[in-house]
């Protein structure tokens, strides 16, 4: 009896590896987990174009904000200070508003935001000879892009806040914001 018992014990100990039940249980759990992962992955794959589009829009917005704040930073004075339109005299690359030369020249830059896009045009400092507006950013959730400090009817803004807001399918809007002080004001 004792030998029989030892033999059975040895048989049990020799069964290293997985039993059918173990494999079934493990596979089932694995399938469940893998299914979840695949679902997530497929969701990510399906949303990738939308995400890529948003990333692209964000990148576009960043470039636009960078461009606007750069021109504000080099600004001399603000001509029009509205929430959806900004006109300021600022330094731009030579030849942008008529005069040729090797150094940046002062021109009037006009940003106008309507519908879901903002356009940019360049004119002479007094507003003459404006160029055709060119779209610089689109897909905006709001055209209230600009804020000023100081603000008010008689105020001469010395700081401009730029805030581009994009609608998203879920949650609140994505906002890219920046601001700059005019560095070439007379005072």
């Amino acid at each position, binding site marked *: 009896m004792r030998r029989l018992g030892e033999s059975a014990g040895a048989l049990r100990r020799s069964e290293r590896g997985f039993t059918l039940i173990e494999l079934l249980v493990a596979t089932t759990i694995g399938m469940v987990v*893998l299914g979840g992962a695949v679902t997530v992955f497929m969701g990510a794959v399906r949303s990738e174009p939308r995400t890529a589009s948003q990333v692209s829009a964000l990148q576009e917005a960043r470039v636009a904000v960078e461009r606007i704040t750069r021109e504000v930073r080099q600004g001399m004075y603000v001509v029009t200070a509205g929430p959806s339109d900004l006109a300021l005299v600022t*330094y731009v690359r030579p030849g942008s508003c008529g005069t040729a030369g090797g150094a940046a020249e002062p021109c009037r830059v006009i940003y106008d935001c309507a519908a879901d896009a903002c356009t940019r045009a360049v004119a002479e400092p007094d507003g003459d000879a404006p160029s055709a507006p060119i779209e610089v950013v689109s897909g905006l959730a709001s055209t209230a892009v600009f804020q000023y400090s100081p603000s008010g009817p008689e105020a001469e803004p010395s700081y401009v806040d730029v805030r581009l807001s994009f609608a998203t399918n879920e949650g609140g809007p994505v906002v890219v914001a920046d601001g700059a002080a005019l560095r070439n004001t007379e005072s």
Partner: protein
Amino acid sequence: MAVPNRLLNAVTSRFASEAGFAVPTVTLMMVAALGMAGIAVSTSIQGQGGAVRDQRSKSALAVAESGVAEALLRFNRAGVVDESTPCAPVETTMEADGWCGAPPPTNVGGGIATFRVRPTASEMPNGEFAFTELEAVSEATVNGVTRKVEVTASSSSGMDPFIDASVKSKDGIHLDSNAEIHAGSATNGDITLDDNARQCGIATVGIGKALNGNGYFADLECGVVGGTPGEDEIRLDPVDASKAAISNDNSRLFSQDLISGNKSTVCFNGLNGKGAPDDSCGARELVIGSNSSVTLGGTVYIFCKVRLDSNSSLYTVKDKQVWIYFDSPEACGYEDEDEPVTQLEMRSNSRITSEAGKANKVALLFVGSDDIATKVLMNSETAVDGPCEQNFAVYGPYTDIELDSNTKFCGGLAGKTVTLHSNAEVWTSSGIHEFYLPLTAPHFIPNRFVDCSTAPAVIAPDEGC
């Protein structure tokens, strides 16, 4: 006891064995979790790439601006720069492209800033050259993102500080009752008009400051009510007397610059007009006693104090621009006391005037001090017969200017504060618009800022600006 032991061994063996479903399950779960985490991390990195670049770009801009700030600091600290060594403040030499060589790069906040400068000299009305413009280009790189900025700055050397207003003050202008200004006024502080005091001429006050009182008129004749004055910031650059301290005409007193009247009451440098020791004046102090006068034949003088007693006069020769400097109280050895150091005191009926009669021909320039208060006190009390009793320019950005009762001043006044006591008057002079600041400390202040493109500069450092 054998059965429990065997059972215990079996359980222990089961737990110790790796033959269960734990390993494949955990492995699969880990693979799945890592996959999901990888996707999340990848998306996050992609999304934040732009933000990181934005941050680096802003850092690079800040570092580049620090390079410009350093360039301006070096020039503003250097004082008057000799025309032959324009690049001395940055410790380099002029290169073939007309720009000073680049000093060693500066490490600022994890970025490297390099800058180059180009000082530009211009000829002043007296034929001297002064560096009146400074162009600085600075480039900085932070974690691979490069930004370049250019700043053009100008100094007041050779400029007319009275071009827009004949009375200027850093901290404020105060008119006691019945005092009047018949000239444009500008201050960074308030203008206060007491009862019946009048400001006749365009006035500007500091940002957020006000004109208090009812006597503001927009014209010199006090005929047009002025309304609310504009707000603006004025600039009064410090006086640099370093050159005058080395080269001046003080030695002419009293060998060539002669005394008229009682020589024993005139004193300079511890000696009276007769050459005898006199303790009524110390080093570089000039005292002109009552009923005496001194005629200055030179063009540059530097004093610590000047006192004109009643009925005395200090004349300057005709058709010469005369600069009378008042050195800083520290350089004169004065100590900080409760009362300000009165560096110019003019008592009743005393005069400082040029034979030419134009205000711009006599300029009193006060170096002053941030730590020791200095003062100009003019006391006339004369009946005003002619158009101007005192006829000159006083320029002291760190010095308080006080006109006592009944003083009549004609010319330009620029001080830390300007106070007119009762019945004092200030009139503008046509000649004051010909006044210019001599080689003042070249305090460069930016007037043009350009955020440049960062294309490599081939011909000149300011390419792309």
